[in-house]
């Protein structure tokens, strides 16, 4: 059994840094923590004093990968503050755009950030020699999702058609119909994706935790719903602070969060566990094929849940497109006048539930903002997982221990590493 002190230093290729510190002596964990050492972000402060019309565009810049979700959540909070309900057409278009973001984000994560671990290569570029077709397939699917993002959101990066009340420009029905055909043509790639991930052996691990996600009796909740804990039921989004308790940790510049227990998980696996019944039948079939049983307490399987959700989002996009093109898309011209109000938006981002809260004054200026991002909510749960995992893998070779730890952290698809694969690792006591 090893005594070791492992410091997984900052994750490269990201704007922020996360470290993992684990100190084990005679088989006992003396210290284990995940430090977030990036500068604290002051996006809330940047929103203050801004017009209700521009805040969504500011928040869309928080993250290039989750821009649709941030924009959507911000708009929902503003609309709630102004007491406005968007049309069924607008909601369907938002859901379609959200599906595009989920697919591109999940494909990026499973193909480019986690798959290289299974081949023990440093990055996706290490897969090219022996698995070029896998990489190309991942890129094809990602490109397909980005095309949908551009079609509905107006451009590939940072959507511009999303606005308060409606879309500034609707996609053409014929373009949506053509896109549906593209999804159908992509099924061989989707099927190959399932086969590929079936061929990879996900590490075994089990730790029952609390799972939090949106839930909606009408559908697999991504766009809207109540906040559900697997422990103790639902609350409405306006009561999100009754469920989510944020707290500061000395070692981290990112807030942590807890709910009923001392940690909880958000993201694909949480949604899968909370809302399995509402998954598209095809997605359920894929879950079965990939060995993802409901409920699942193996955090590594979050990657597989992402593959399952990718299938769900493709199927759901076909359904939404059929629905949207069955009638004429109406050009909506909605300009909401400013007034004082208080609104909360909750949406599922690819990495978990995202909350935006805004207060407006009479002129529509933001007087209060609070954003809770998925990665902050997962940090305490990652630490708890590591506390369970590490004692069980101490018999392994050093490189295998490090790989197991890295893979577990990466399985959460943390946003601090939203563009990363490689972590710098060194053993201190050598």
């Amino acid at each position, binding site marked *: 059994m090893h005594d070791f002190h492992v410091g997984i230093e900052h994750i*490269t*290729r*990201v*704007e*922020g840094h996360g470290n993992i510190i684990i100190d084990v002596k005679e088989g006992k964990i003396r210290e284990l923590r995940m430090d977030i050492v990036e500068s604290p*972000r*002051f*996006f809330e*402060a*940047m929103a203050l004093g801004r017009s209700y019309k521009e805040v969504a565009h*500011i928040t869309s*810049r*928080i*993250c*290039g*990968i989750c*821009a649709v979700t941030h924009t959507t959540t911000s708009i929902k909070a503003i609309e709630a503050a102004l007491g406005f309900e968007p049309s069924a057409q607008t909601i369907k278009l938002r859901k379609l755009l959200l599906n595009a973001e989920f697919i*591109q984000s999940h494909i*990026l994560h499973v193909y*480019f950030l986690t798959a290289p671990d299974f081949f023990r290569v440093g*990055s*996706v*570029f290490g897969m*090219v020699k022996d698995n*070029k077709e896998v*990489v*190309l397939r991942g*890129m094809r699917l*990602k*490109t397909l999702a*980005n*095309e949908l993002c*551009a079609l509905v959101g107006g*451009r*590939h*990066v*940072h959507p511009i058609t999303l606005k308060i009340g409606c879309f500034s420009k609707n996609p053409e029905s014929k373009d949506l119909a053509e896109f549906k055909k593209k999804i159908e043509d992509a099924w061989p790639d989707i099927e190959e994706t399932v086969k590929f991930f079936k061929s990879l052996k996900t590490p075994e691990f089990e730790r029952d935790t609390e799972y939090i996600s949106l839930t909606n009796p009408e559908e697999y909740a991504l766009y809207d719903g109540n906040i559900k804990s697997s422990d103790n039921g639902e609350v409405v989004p306006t009561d999100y602070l009754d469920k989510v308790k944020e707290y500061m940790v000395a070692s981290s510049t990112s807030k942590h969060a807890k709910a009923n227990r001392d940690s909880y998980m958000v993201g694909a696996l949480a949604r899968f566990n909370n809302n399995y019944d509402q998954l598209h039948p095809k997605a359920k079939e894929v879950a079965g094929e990939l060995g993802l049983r409901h409920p699942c307490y193996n955090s590594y399987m979050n990657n597989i849940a992402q593959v399952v959700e990718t299938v769900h989002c493709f199927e759901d996009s076909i359904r939404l497109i059929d629905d949207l093109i069955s009638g004429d898309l109406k050009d909506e011209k909605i300009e909401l006048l400013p007034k004082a109000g208080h609104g909360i938006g909750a949406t599922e981002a690819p990495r978990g539930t995202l909350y935006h809260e805004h207060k407006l004054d009479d002129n529509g200026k933001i007087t209060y903002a609070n954003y809770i991002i998925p990665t902050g909510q997962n940090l305490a749960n990652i630490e708890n997982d590591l506390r369970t995992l590490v004692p069980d893998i101490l018999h392994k070779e050093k490189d295998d221990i490090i790989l197991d730890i890295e893979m577990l952290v990466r399985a959460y698809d943390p946003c601090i590493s*939203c*563009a990363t694969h490689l972590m710098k690792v060194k053993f201190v006591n050598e």
Partner: protein
Amino acid sequence: MNDNNRIVVIGIGNLLLMDEGIGVHTINELEKYDLPRNIEIYDGGTGGFKLIDLMHGAVRVIFIDAVGAGKAPGTITTFRSEDVRSLYHKKKYSLHDTDLMEVIKMTELLEVSPKIEIVGIQPKTINYGTTLSKELTDSMPDIINTVLRRIEEVCSTLSV
């Protein structure tokens, strides 16, 4: 104009981090110009691999990005396509989460690689804010001139 003359100019960076967003600010400025029809300009933000989808079919791509080269704020350094490859192994070349080098490597893998060059601008302040530092604001005319001149040079090469 066919695809063989398609030139794509992409400004990248985070608009919420002051000078880090210089590439996007430059694109916003370029939108005021009447550019030839074969020139496409894009706000690439922090799009990462999404940027590849903007590059398909282009014969040349010019990235505009914040580059920490230890020079005076606003200093413009242009990396021609033959120099870009030499930057692959340099760490922390780019100051934000979009690792431009990975994007460029991926385009080569996809075998759709246009010639890629980079117009890099030395930032002064990377901090929370949506405005540029005074130094970079003052440099904007030079940055625009550099990009326009480069577009013109590339166009003249292509028309030969």
